[in-house]
């Protein structure tokens, strides 16, 4: 792995150090004061940019960094450091939330790699799902018109979609490993396929949410 080396100058003591990245320089190596934080979640946690992540290690680093950065530790520090602490902890918390969730983590890497992942409108039905979605919507309509006979059909349909979601998650996991093992030039292609899997997944998730809401109102 090659890291770009950046020069970082401390806001307080003015000394310059060489860092792997701006985000990696949380504290000045000379005077130990907190530095202006930078939003780069992987660097912040000291991880290489990768789609697979060691969840236990992520949690360990999260707790360790929390102890060092949390505003509770800076009540009596200078205003600059208090502000940096607040900023740094919000980046830490936001990053932890994103990195620990495989889907959000993948979306983050896609965005960082220049992919447009703006909230895909659920209107565009993935073609391979057209038939299933049509059946499900029919069942929903029948049910809403008061005919409870469609209930069994809807349940069966829901179970099929839950199965699909599980399949997708499994295929995502293997794509993640492929991506991390592949040399840089091939990664873009893998990311492209990950993006389309994610779109499919998001579509199914929204669909399931709607069905589950229907079941919930029925139970209530």
């Amino acid at each position, binding site marked *: 792995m090659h890291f770009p080396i950046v020069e970082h100058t401390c806001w307080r003591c003015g000394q310059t150090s060489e860092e792997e990245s701006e985000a990696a320089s*949380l*504290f*000045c*190596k000379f005077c*130990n*004061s*907190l530095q202006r934080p930078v939003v780069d979640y992987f660097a912040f946690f000291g991880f290489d940019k990768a789609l697979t992540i060691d969840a236990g290690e992520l949690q360990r680093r999260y*707790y*360790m960094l*929390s*102890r*060092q*950065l*949390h*505003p*509770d*530790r800076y*009540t*009596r*520090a200078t205003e600059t450091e208090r502000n940096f602490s*607040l900023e740094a*902890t*919000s*980046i830490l*918390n*936001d990053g*932890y*939330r994103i990195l620990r969730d495989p889907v959000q983590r993948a979306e983050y890497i896609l965005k960082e790699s220049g992919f447009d992942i703006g909230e895909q409108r659920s209107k565009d039905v993935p073609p391979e799902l057209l038939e299933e979605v049509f059946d499900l919507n029919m069942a929903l309509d029948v049910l809403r018109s008061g005919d409870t006979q469609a209930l069994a059909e809807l349940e069966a349909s829901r179970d099929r979609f839950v199965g699909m979601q599980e399949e997708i998650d499994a295929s995502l996991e293997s794509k993640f490993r492929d991506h991390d093992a592949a040399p840089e030039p091939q990664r873009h292609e893998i990311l492209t396929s990950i993006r389309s899997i994610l779109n499919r997944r998001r579509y199914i998730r929204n669909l399931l949410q709607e069905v589950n809401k229907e079941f919930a109102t029925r139970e209530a």
Partner: protein
Amino acid sequence: MSTFQIDFSAAAKKRIVGIDLGTTNSLIAFMDLTGPEVIPTPEGSKLVPSVVSVSNDGSYVVGERAQRLLIDAPERTVYSVKRLMGRGIEDVRDELRLFPFRIADGSENVIRLELGGKLLTPPEISAQVLKQLKAQAEAYLSEEVSQAVITVPAYFNDAQRQATKDAGRIAGLEVLRLVNEPTAAALAYGLDKRKNGVVAVYDFGGGTFDISILRLNDGIFEVLSTNGDTHLGGDDIDNKLLRIALEDVESEWDEDVSHSGEAVQTLRRAVIIAKEKLSFVPSATIEFGWRGKLYQREISRELFEGLIKDIVERTLAPCRHAMLDASLKPEQIDEVVLVGGSTRIPLVRQAVETLFKAKPHTELNPDEVVALGAAVQAAILSGDVTDKLLLDVTPLSLGIETMGGVVSKLIHRNSTIPASATEVFTTSVDGQLNVLIHVVQGERELARDCRSLARFDLKDLQPVPAGMARVEVRFLIDANGILNVSARDMRSGKEQSVEVKPSYGLTDDQVEAMITESFERAEEDFAARQTREAQVEADTILLALDKAQASDAWHVLGDAERATIAAARKGLLTVYHTGTHLQIRDAIEKLDGVSRKLAENMMNTAVRAALKGSKID
């Protein structure tokens, strides 16, 4: 990785106190060498009733004494004001029927109570409670207290948190942190010493209900989820019993007493006493005496439990939601902690035990545990405790209103705070100079079903064609659970000015004005009290002199002596109304000095008279 520094400079030595600003009672605590400790009142009580009364002269009475005034002067006394914090009149219309408070006009955004000729907002009233606690701590610790941690219900929204912070500022306290009450309780229990694991804190207080689920990991208290109801507490039980008792009294006496504030408050007191007894004995009697009549109604625990069943059940849905949000089943929760006075009720304990399938912790006094936790958090902030750290969450999702009134969520509920989100805004019309952003809190999809938090006005934009402006807005929820908004023009990179119009609560200027007024008034109040005390002393001596002048002792004195006394008396009367307390005291001393002989004569005369009297008899 470098380690962090703790500043040990002189300023760092300042003590930070922990305050539980409760609906019913408030407490103040500090970290002693041995651990957290609640500071008692001069009378020896640890609880200060959160009751404030305005006297005839405009001064405030707080706590135990104010509680007595609830019955004697209900029109100038207020309780449970926490329920009104950060709210508008529409939010509390229902419950106001049972509260005897008069709400002034124009209370849509901030409630204003009419109290003894004053118009007061909830933060100003809470500030009086905080001032009392502050004075109590200063007397006990013999040092100035100016920095505090204050606890709030975990489910408090932005406006309610801001109102609590405002109250602190008005009381002259720098509020270094707002801590969620259940989290504070978890800290006080020190469960982290025992083991790493998952803890549920069930906090059922006087006016609010909270449930928080935490993971403990080597001194880190990580909140996984929280839920609750900021309008559910012991007050609701009291109100229910009160409503029934009022009807019962009416049918027994054939008289509706609900129009008399005094009667309602007396009956309310009686109902509360019976409720509290029922936690320990199987049956209690509501006793209510009013205008020579006596109402007595025995109530069994069974009947009581039947009445409050639905209130207790309302706490269970938030518990289930919290477990769902934390992706945990009851079996996965290792410990349950009970907090708040209402958890003394056996039915509540039963319900908790059934739901979580675990025997709850009740070792610490449920009234004190939150204040003790606040003191621990204060010690974390001061750097005295370094092995513990709280990671709390925001209880409600934060979003902005988009086209068609739909909410776009930016920060989801149960996100660890500080948390942030960034959004880029643009203009829709050529040359548009400002963009208005409506921020809401809540889980619903439409803005009108959520709680309006504030409107942010991005002002003084560069006039450019529609869609060309790019303003990056950063929404940041700080460690207190309060939203901060900043904006940057992405084209120029310059900071963009943002004007905040809070939907509920006071503006910064209003709070500033209240702080100024409260300090000016504090001096004014103090001077007035000293003068009054001096006048009372003057009254005593003048009255004694009048008596003496009518006695034989006066005539025994020489002319010169009588003239000196008369002159000193005149001197006191001159300064009595217009002088400062120092001038009055000066005059009192002079009069006292010149009339010493007269006093001796009086004593002798009195002794002689007494002796004479005893002989006759």
